[in-house]
C-alpha cells in the first residue's frame, strides 16, 4: 500500500484556543480512515486544514505525492480531494442536478457542461437520488441534503473523499443506506476519511481510526484496539453512553 495523504505536525489556533495541535497521520490508498473525538475536539478543523479552507499555522500536508500545504480548496479539488460539509451547504437556488453538475464541472476532471451532466446523472443514480434530480435543492429533507453533499463531492471524481458526519440526523434505515453507499464508494477505488459520532457505524466501516481530543491526536489504530485504549476511554469519560457504545461495538 502507498500513502495517499500524509499529514505532518499540523496545528491551528483560533485566538487563545488550540483547535488542532501538532497532528500527524497517514492515510493509505484504498482505506477508510475514521476520525472520532468528543465535540469540539477539532475534527472539522482538521478537515478544513486538509482541504485548504484554513491555512495551517505549522506543519505540512502531502496529497498524492504533492505538497498541498497552503493551497486553496478549489485547487485541492482539482487534484482529487473532495469533501462534504457537516452543516449542509446546498446551492439553494439551483436544482439537485445543477448542484451535482457544479461538482463535476469543477472537479478533478474539470468536465465540460455536457460531460458533467452525464456524470451528475450517474452519481445521482448511485446515491439513490435520481428521482429528485429536478427538485430545487432547498426543498430536500436533511437526509437528502446530506446525500446531495456526498453526490456533489463524488461528481468531482475524487481519489480521496472527506465525509464530515454524513450520518448525523439520519434515521436507522437511512443510516444503513448511507453505510452501504460508503462501502460501495470505497470499493469503486475512492479512499475515504470520515468523521462520525455514530460509533457502531464508524467501528464497522473503518480500517483504522484516528482519535482527537482537545486538538491532539490520542490514538491511531484499528477499531478493536482503539476501544481498548485507556486514553480514548478517558477522553470519552464525560460521555458515559459513548463509552458504552465504544465497548458495545467491539
Amino acid at each position: 500500500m502507498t500513502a495517499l495523504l500524509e499529514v505532518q505536525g499540523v496545528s491551528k489556533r483560533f485566538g487563545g484556543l488550540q483547535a488542532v495541535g501538532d497532528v500527524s497521520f497517514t492515510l493509505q490508498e484504498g482505506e477508510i480512515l475514521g476520525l472520532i473525538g468528543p465535540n469540539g475536539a477539532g475534527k472539522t478543523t482538521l478537515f478544513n486544514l486538509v482541504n485548504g479552507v484554513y491555512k495551517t499555522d505549522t506543519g505540512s500536508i502531502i496529497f498524492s505525492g504533492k505538497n498541498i500545504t497552503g493551497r486553496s480548496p478549489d485547487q485541492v479539488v482539482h487534484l482529487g480531494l473532495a469533501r462534504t460539509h457537516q452543516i449542509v451547504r446546498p446551492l439553494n437556488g439551483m436544482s439537485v442536478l445543477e448542484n451535482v453538475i457544479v461538482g463535476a464541472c469543477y472537479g478533478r476532471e474539470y468536465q465540460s457542461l455536457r460531460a458533467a451532466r452525464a456524470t451528475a446523472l450517474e452519481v445521482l443514480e448511485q446515491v439513490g437520488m435520481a428521482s429528485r434530480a429536478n427538485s430545487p435543492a432547498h426543498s430536500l429533507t436533511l437526509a437528502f441534503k446530506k446525500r446531495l453533499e456526498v453526490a456533489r463531492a463524488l461528481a468531482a471524481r475524487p481519489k480521496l473523499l472527506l465525509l464530515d458526519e454524513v450520518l448525523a440526523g439520519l434515521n436507522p434505515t437511512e443510516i444503513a443506506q448511507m453505510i452501504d453507499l460508503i462501502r460501495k464508494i470505497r470499493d469503486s477505488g475512492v479512499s475515504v476519511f470520515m468523521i462520525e459520532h455514530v460509533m457502531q457505524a464508524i467501528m464497522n466501516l473503518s480500517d483504522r481510526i484516528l482519535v482527537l481530543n482537545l486538538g491532539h491526536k490520542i490514538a491511531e489504530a484499528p477499531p478493536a484496539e482503539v476501544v481498548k485504549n485507556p486514553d480514548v476511554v478517558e477522553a470519552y469519560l464525560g460521555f458515559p453512553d459513548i463509552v458504552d457504545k465504544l465497548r458495545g461495538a467491539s
Partner: protein
Amino acid sequence: MILRRPLLWLILALAALFVWLPLRNHDVALREDLILVAVAIILTSNLNLMIGYTGYVNFGHIVFYGLGGYVGLYLATVLNWNLIVAALIAGVTVSVLALLFGLGILRLRGAYFALATIGVLVAVQAFVANFEPWGRSTGMYVSFASYAPLGGARRALWITYYLIIGVMALSLVLSLGIRRSKFGLGLFAIREDEDAAIVLGVNATVYKAIIYSVSAFLPAVAGALMFFKNGMIDPSIAFEYMLSLEGIVMLMLGGQGTVAGSALGGALYERLRSYLLTSPRLSEFHLVIAGALLLLVVRLAPGGLIGWLYRLVPRSREVVE
C-alpha cells in the same frame, strides 16, 4: 446549443424591430426615444451579470459608461480616430481597469463590496473632474468636424443609433451565452454560496474579477457612442449617481438573474422615467416613484415581472431561459 434557444431569436427580432421602427418614417423623435431604451437595456443586462448572476451588488455600474464615454470621446474628437475603433478601445480600456479594480475590491463581500463600488464611482469622478486633458469639470465637446468622416452630423446620428442597437443585441446575447455556459454555472454557484462554490472547485477570485471586467465592456462601448452622439460630456452627466441606482431598480423590476427580465425592466422603467421627466407636474417626483416601485417589487414580486410570469405560466420558462 445557444442557436436553439428561442430567446436568441427573440433578441434578434427585438433588434430588427428597433432598426425598422424609426427608419420607416425617418422618425427622429422615435429614434431618440428608442436609443434611451436601448442604453437602459445595455446597462441593465450588464449589471445583471454582477447582481443577478454572481450576487454582487454594484452601486457604481455607471462608472463604466461614463469612463467609456470619456475615453471614446477623447479618441474620436481630440485624436480624430474612427468612431468604431475609438468605442472599442474605450471598451477594452475600461474592461482592463475594471479587472485591476476587481481583483482588489472583490475580496470584499456583501455590503462591504457594495460600499467599495460607490467608492470607485466617487473616486473616478473626482479624478476625471481634475484631469486636464479631459477638460476638468467643464468636460469635452465634439467638434462639428468630427462628424464629417461619418457623412455629416445627420448621418452620424443614425449611424450611432444603429451601433447602439448592435451593442444592445450583443449585450443580451452575451448574457444568454454566459447563462448557458459552464462559466455561468460557476457564477451561479458563487451567488448561492461562495464558500461552498470554492470547496466545489470554483476559483471565485478569478471568476468574480472576470465577470466584473466583462460587465464593464459593452457599457463602456455604449458610453463612447452615446456621448459622441450627444456632442458633449462632463463629469456630472457622465457619472450620474442616480442612473446607477435606477439601474438597480430596472433590474429588480424586470427580474434579476434572467436575460429577459433585465431587458424588460430596462425598457419599461426607461419609458416610465422619460414620461415622468417630461411631464410638468411629475418631473420632480420621478425618484420618489422609482423608490416606491422598488419597494413594491421587493415586497410583492421578489422575482420581478419575469418571476411573476414564471409563476403564472410555468411553461414560459422554457421559452424565456
